[in-house]
């Protein structure tokens, strides 16, 4: 690399030389455009975030029914715009550690039943009001009171009192809870003036971007909140989110440069898309998993031998290869993987074993077909996955009959109702939350009807255990219980696959949720 090229590179990285001119001059110096582009993107990254420019995103998962009320958010587009416009108490960082946002610091009482959050001073809402501890308390109350329709109601249930002392928020929990701050990072819990009691859909938050235009199901336009407290994020002047639910249309929009960032790249086209010039496909191992769930209290699934036979009769690697096209990892019949803190790596991986499956199946004494309900909406590729399951189980002498259900109404009529069906879980930030959401005996979404007193006791104990080694051992034991006795067949953990083009840069791997936990728009910056 000669001095002249280095000089050009530095200018281009700073933006004083435009990209096309840079490539032209680089070519004149005998540097091919592929090499020059590669060096340029490295130089831009090294230069650090640049302010300015605008970002256009193409997102799947938006409907004309979407609301600005954070309590009602359930799909990807509301998730994205809440992450960008809202400010939570805390965030979970890419490394799995908590980062203070509205909360500056927090402490727990020694028995982990009382948590105190000091509210950061000088944080401003989009309407100019200052964020107070009272606003935070009201927000939490709105998501947990009797009239609440919030998606976060389940995680708020353990909180028994919400109080304010000066600039400090004091939360009491029913039992000890060492993970409470992690729960408060939930994307529904964006702080609103007076908690949103006045007008929950006003779109007034305290995040890096404020609302300009809101056309649900079409597009959402936001601009930089000038008085945002954290100058290390929020580099674009404006962000436009286009709702593009069709996968092919999303890819085309990225390739033709109409958008710079897309979510939910389908595994079957991810490889092709990555080969297109100027496109980066990012695959992130996360906590989301695809599952087949059996009700442990309903015949014939009330027999553990039958459950074990079905668990042994599924070919996990084949599913990862064919359904996820390699963008994922094999599951181990528990909802936890290495992306969780305190995961025990020593738990043995369950393998496809038709002989063992046949042994357990015969011991269960069951005969005749077993009905498995599936649908395209259960998870991408769920119908094909059920077909693969049927084939691999047939080799063990187990007859699975596939019932294909309509996508419309699947979550109300089939999932959590029928005894054996396909489904998915998005994963939770910590093990406690995942287990409390779906495996505790009295959980709302105990979709495997898993009732185990010892498991419940361990879960509550682990929740209040501040010693991490003992806690890890407890979670390991609980994982083994679900794996060997539960109704969960978890063949695979899916990766999040997102893509961006080289007009933007600054991607970091974040295992929490898709799009760098929804923070890609506020953490990435313009490369032009």
């Amino acid at each position, binding site marked *: 690399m000669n001095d002249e090229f280095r000089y050009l590179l530095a200018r281009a990285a700073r933006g004083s030389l435009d990209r096309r001119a840079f490539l032209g001059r680089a070519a004149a110096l005998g540097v091919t455009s592929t090499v020059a582009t590669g060096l340029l993107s490295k130089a831009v990254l090294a230069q650090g975030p640049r302010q300015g420019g605008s970002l256009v995103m193409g997102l799947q998962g938006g409907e004309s029914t979407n609301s600005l009320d954070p309590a009602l958010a359930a799909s990807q587009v509301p998730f994205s715009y809440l992450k960008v416009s809202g400010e939570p108490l805390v965030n979970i960082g890419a490394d799995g550690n908590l980062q203070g946002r509205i909360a500056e610091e927090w402490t727990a009482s020694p028995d982990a039943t009382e948590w105190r959050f000091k509210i950061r001073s000088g944080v401003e809402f989009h309407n100019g009001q200052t964020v107070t501890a009272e606003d935070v308390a009201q927000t939490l109350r709105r998501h947990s009171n009797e009239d609440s*329709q919030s998606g976060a109601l389940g995680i708020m249930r353990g909180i028994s009192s919400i109080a304010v002392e000066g600039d400090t928020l004091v939360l009491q929990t029913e039992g000890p809870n060492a993970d409470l701050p992690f729960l408060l990072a939930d994307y529904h819990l964006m702080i609103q003036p007076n908690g949103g009691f006045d007008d929950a859909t006003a779109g007034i938050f305290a995040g890096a971007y404020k609302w300009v235009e809101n056309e649900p199901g079409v597009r959402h336009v936001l601009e930089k909140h000038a008085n945002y407290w954290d100058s290390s994020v929020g580099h674009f002047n404006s962000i436009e989110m286009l709702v593009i639910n*069709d996968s092919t249309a999303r890819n085309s929009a990225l390739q033709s440069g109409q958008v710079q960032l897309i979510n939910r790249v389908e595994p079957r086209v991810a490889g092709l898309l990555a080969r297109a010039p100027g496109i980066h496909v990012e695959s992130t191992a996360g906590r989301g998993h695809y599952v087949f769930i059996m009700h442990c209290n309903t015949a014939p699934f009330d027999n553990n031998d039958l459950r074990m036979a079905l668990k042994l009769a599924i070919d996990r690697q084949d599913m990862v290869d064919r359904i996820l096209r390699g963008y994922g990892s094999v599951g181990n019949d528990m909802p936890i993987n290495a992306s969780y803190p305190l995961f025990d790596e020593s738990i043995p991986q369950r393998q496809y074993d038709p002989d063992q499956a046949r042994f357990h199946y015969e011991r269960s004494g069951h005969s005749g077909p077993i009905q498995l309900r599936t649908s395209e909406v259960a998870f991408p590729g769920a119908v094909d996955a059920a077909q693969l399951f049927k084939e691999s189980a047939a080799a063990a002498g187990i007859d699975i009959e596939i019932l294909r259900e309509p996508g419309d109404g699947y979550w109300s009529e089939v999932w959590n109702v029928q005894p054996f069906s396909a489904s998915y879980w998005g994963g939770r930030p910590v093990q406690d939350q995942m287990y409390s959401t779906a495996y505790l005996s009295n959980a709302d979404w105990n979709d495997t009807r898993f009732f185990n007193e010892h498991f419940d006791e361990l879960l509550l104990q682990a929740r209040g255990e501040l010693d991490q080694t003992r806690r890890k051992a407890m979670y390991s034991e609980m994982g083994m219980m679900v794996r060997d006795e539960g109704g969960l067949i978890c063949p695979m953990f899916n990766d999040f696959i997102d893509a961006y083009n080289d007009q933007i840069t600054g991607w970091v791997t974040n295992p929490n949720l898709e799009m760098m936990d929804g923070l890609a728009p506020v953490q990435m910056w313009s490369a032009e």
Partner: protein
Amino acid sequence: MHPVLKLVIQRLALGLLLLLAASVLIFVGTQILPGDVAQAILGQGATPEALANLRSELGLDEPAFTRYIEWLSSALQGDLGTALSNGRDIASSIGGRLQNTLFLAAVAACISVPLAIFLGLLAVRYRDRWPDKLISAITLTSISLPEFLLGYVIMYFFSVQWGLFPSVSNINSGMSFLEKLNAVALPAMVLTLVVLAHMMRMTRAAILNVMQSAYVETAELKGLRRFTIIARHAMPNAIAPIVNVVMINLAYLVVGVVVIEVVFVYPGMGQYLVDHVAKRDVPVVQACGLIFATIYIGLNILADVISILSNPRLRHPK
């Protein structure tokens, strides 16, 4: 009363009656949709408390007949209610979507209707020779391909490869007329290809039918040019069937383009309706149904009236 006026009034009255019947059907249809509004709104993340709270708030417990009468009377006053799912005023949300849908339909119609009729005339002029066969082959191919495939192919070449037009046809009120035209170029192109064949074939068949008549032979014997005979003498007598087909296609352009809206991310009525059906947002579904029914019935009445007016025997009774 002039018999034509009488006929037209009859048609209008019949249309209104039909609209009332349609409103009953829409209302009943939305009542028997399976599933539950509250569950659909809250999705997989619904807890029993949240469900119960939402249900009582939406007031889903009144008798159906009362709700029908209330709904119809307020709809007649232009009040379509508020959407259950996001609390927005339906009339104002639909307003923008309807404008977009009508804009795209109008652009597609402005290209496709004259083009289809012209190609039909051309096909008759060169009947059974290569231009006729070529026109038929191309239009029949384009109508046989699924719309979304046609959309993807056009998107691939015109947007990804050549960069001529945007693949995302998102239009908004801040755009100028020319910008909007540029944005809808690709969907309008696909829609034109989709509706062309039907109208072209009908024009050709209807005109060929009258070409057998004695007066056409007279015109030929007078030594008129063949295209003049077709356009000036045969065409006016073939107008009734052509208008009917044109109207059906116009109605299709307004009510049936949800696939194109999805592929090109166009913010029209179709996508709006589908989203709300998925969420069991009954008031919106009813409002959309009513608007679609009005457009469909209205265009068909228009076709009827034009057919009546184009018939000289009805225009000039003895």
